[in-house]
């Protein structure tokens, strides 16, 4: 089968990049027109991605790589290029589809914002960078795009920069992910020094770490893998660098759906999948990935139980689900990890967009002030319900299949990881039930007037919800115990999914138990009280305060570093600036002294001239005698 569209894959990031350029050049005057430009650009990218994916569905589609020499400095040659494989085709579909839907949704959600074209410009830039990240054929190109999406994330979290919380959240996100980025950068440098011919592309990684293992020592491999994983931990909000993701919810809700749920935070997972050959060569690294993933999954899920901000609950849920993906990768199954990334992108984007629709209607994010909205917003409630069921892992929704794949992979690795994953699944179902019942069921608890004004969002916002709901139901069927299409497509049939009825039954059991308890506590009576929480107030407090991680970081890192920074800035002001000021002021003083000479008296000038001549004569005559 000929490959046609794959060759033109590099157009995919170019469309949104062009849209960004147009929107930036034309400025704010464009308003809605600019929004449409960006939306059409993302539609073009989506169509191209769809064509590529369809082309690759054939059995014998070969991987396509195109690269150019980017930099040559002496013997150092750096390449930039793109690579189209089944994996990148899948990611292209995910990114462009969610980006397109979020663009459409934002047409409604951001309608009244005066900086709407700036918003769409940033989203277009983000889409372009994310597609670049997906397509990159080597780690360096990936890293550039990796930083670009970080910048876009920063800009969009701080989009409403007049809110001090948004400013703080943007800074926090940028600085915390920076820690991870540094790890990735060091890993790239280590690879550059140690790879034969300084190759940084993924094919060479496969050759070195998979086919001829032993070329790079195990301890170095482990170090590199852990540093790469540090980058992924920062970007994907894994413990202990998860703290930025919940705060990032200060950004507009479509951004939370696009960047902080479906695509950018999944970039960390994608990075690990892309460099999985390195991880596979080191057991220690794999174990670390699995343990961090599992811990993050249960940690974040338990925090999600006690939050009251609708977006924060979803954010912690995202962190937890990303932990699931890492758990699957650590257990050695890229298929399960990518499968969960695939389904999660749809149902979590759906949940965020539905939450945005709710916020749009009632203008609050506190779930204690909501309730009974299901009667007013039918489409939102139904689609949110579908998303919640998918996230909770109820068959036949998408999340069930992918979560089962993750849990099965975990069980293959270690029963402990499986148990932790199962507990996290229980928590997931519980907090989703709490969220759903408190927001959509029962009586309205908040401002009665706000409730009376709450109405269903316009079609431009509900349409993406419906599309995503369809995917949340159907996306799971690409990989089921009786149909392992995705796995064989992604890995050329190398990976076989493992299936056991025990996993299925226990996961359904955990999810149903979670939903039932949720209904018992929050759904049956409209009181919305949790007897367990009331009996154990210290536990509730611990969860509400997010295990005091933020406070701990504040005490252990932020304050000492701020103190150090203040000390350094004082040193800078006193010593460095002082030296500069000294030079400046001494020249100024010399100048002032010289202005005294300018008296305006011609006779004085004549005297200076004579003195100068005398000095000159003395100098010339003196030289003769020396």
């Amino acid at each position, binding site marked *: 089968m000929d490959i046609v569209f794959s060759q033109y894959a590099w157009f995919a990031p170019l469309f949104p990049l062009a849209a960004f350029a147009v929107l930036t050049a034309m400025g704010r005057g464009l308003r809605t027109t600019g929004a449409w430009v960006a939306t059409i650009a993302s539609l073009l990218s989506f169509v191209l991605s769809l064509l590529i994916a369809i082309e690759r569905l054939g059995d014998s589609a070969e991987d396509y790589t195109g690269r150019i020499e980017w930099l040559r400095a002496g013997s150092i040659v750096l390449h930039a290029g793109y690579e189209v494989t089944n994996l990148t085709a899948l990611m292209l579909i995910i990114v462009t589809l969610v980006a397109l839907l979020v663009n459409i949704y934002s047409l409604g959600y951001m309608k009244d914002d005066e900086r709407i074209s700036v918003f769409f410009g940033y989203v277009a830039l983000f889409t372009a960078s994310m597609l670049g990240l997906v397509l990159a054929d080597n780690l360096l190109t990936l890293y550039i795009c990796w930083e670009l999406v970080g910048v876009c994330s920063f800009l969009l979290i701080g989009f409403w920069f007049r809110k001090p919380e948004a400013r703080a959240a943007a800074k926090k996100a940028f600085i915390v992910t920076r820690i991870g980025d540094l790890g990735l950068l060091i890993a790239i440098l280590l690879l550059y020094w140690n790879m034969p011919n300084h190759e940084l592309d993924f094919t060479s990684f496969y050759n070195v770490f998979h086919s001829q293992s032993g070329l790079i020592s195990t301890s170095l491999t482990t170090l590199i893998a852990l540093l790469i994983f540090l980058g992924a931990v920062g970007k994907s909000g894994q413990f202990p660098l998860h703290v930025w993701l919940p705060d990032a919810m200060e950004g507009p809700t479509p951004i939370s759906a696009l960047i902080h749920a479906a695509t950018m935070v999944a970039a960390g997972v994608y990075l690990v999948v892309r460099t999985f050959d390195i991880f596979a060569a080191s057991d220690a690294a794999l174990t670390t990935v699995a343990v961090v993933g599992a811990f993050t999954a249960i940690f974040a899920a338990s925090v999600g139980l006690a939050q009251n901000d609708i977006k924060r609950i979803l954010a912690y849920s995202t962190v937890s689900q990303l932990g699931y993906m890492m758990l699957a990768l650590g257990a050695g199954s890229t298929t399960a990890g990518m499968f969960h990334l695939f389904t999660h992108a749809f149902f979590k984007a759906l949940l965020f967009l539905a939450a945005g629709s709710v916020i749009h209607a009632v203008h609050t994010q506190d779930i204690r002030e909501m309730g009974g909205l299901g009667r007013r917003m039918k489409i939102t409630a139904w689609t949110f319900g579908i998303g919640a069921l998918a996230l909770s892992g109820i068959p036949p929704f998408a999340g069930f299949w992918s979560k089962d794949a993750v849990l099965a992979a975990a069980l293959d690795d270690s029963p402990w990881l499986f148990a932790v994953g199962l507990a996290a699944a229980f928590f997931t179902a519980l907090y989703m039930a709490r969220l759903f019942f408190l927001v959509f069921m029962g009586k309205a608890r908040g401002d009665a007037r706000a409730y009376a004004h709450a109405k269903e969002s316009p079609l431009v916002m509900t349409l993406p919800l419906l599309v995503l709901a369809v995917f949340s139901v159907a996306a799971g069927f690409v990989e089921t115990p009786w149909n392992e299409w995705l796995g064989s497509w992604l890995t050329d049939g190398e990976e076989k999914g493992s299936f056991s009825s025990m996993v299925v039954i226990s996961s359904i059991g955990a999810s149903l138990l979670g939903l039932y308890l949720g209904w018992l506590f929050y759904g049956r009576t409209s009181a919305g009280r949790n007897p367990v929480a009331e009996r154990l107030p210290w536990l509730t407090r611990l969860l509400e305060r997010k295990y005091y991680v933020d406070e701990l970081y504040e005490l252990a890192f932020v304050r000492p570093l701020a103190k150090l920074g203040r000390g350094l800035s004082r040193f800078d002001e006193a010593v460095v600036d002082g030296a500069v000021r000294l030079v400046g002021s001494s020249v100024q003083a010399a100048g002032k002294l010289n202005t005294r000479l*300018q*008296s305006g*008296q*011609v*006779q004085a000038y*004549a005297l200076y001239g*004579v003195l100068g001549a005398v000095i000159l004569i003395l100098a010339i005559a003196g030289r003769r005698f020396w």
Partner: protein
Amino acid sequence: MTMLSSYLTLAAVLFCIGLYGVITKRNAVIVLLSIELMLNAVNLNLIAFSKYGINASLRGQVFSLFTMTVAAAEAAVGIAVLISLYRRRVTVNVDEFDELRR
């Protein structure tokens, strides 16, 4: 060569007296006179060299005639400037002319 050096010494003395006058005198008319003194010291040099110099010729004397002519014109202009200054400021004290500072 003693003749030459005695002329040159005389010229140097004249020049220095003129210079002293230019720098120290407060009256603008005296300053102008001192300038003339310095010019004539130079003329004396020219003439001394034209008579006793290594390539003695009339050239120096002719040149000093020109200098005198120009000096006369210069003195006329100088006096004219001085008179208009006096009309404006009612003084010829050079200490009070410090426009160059502004």
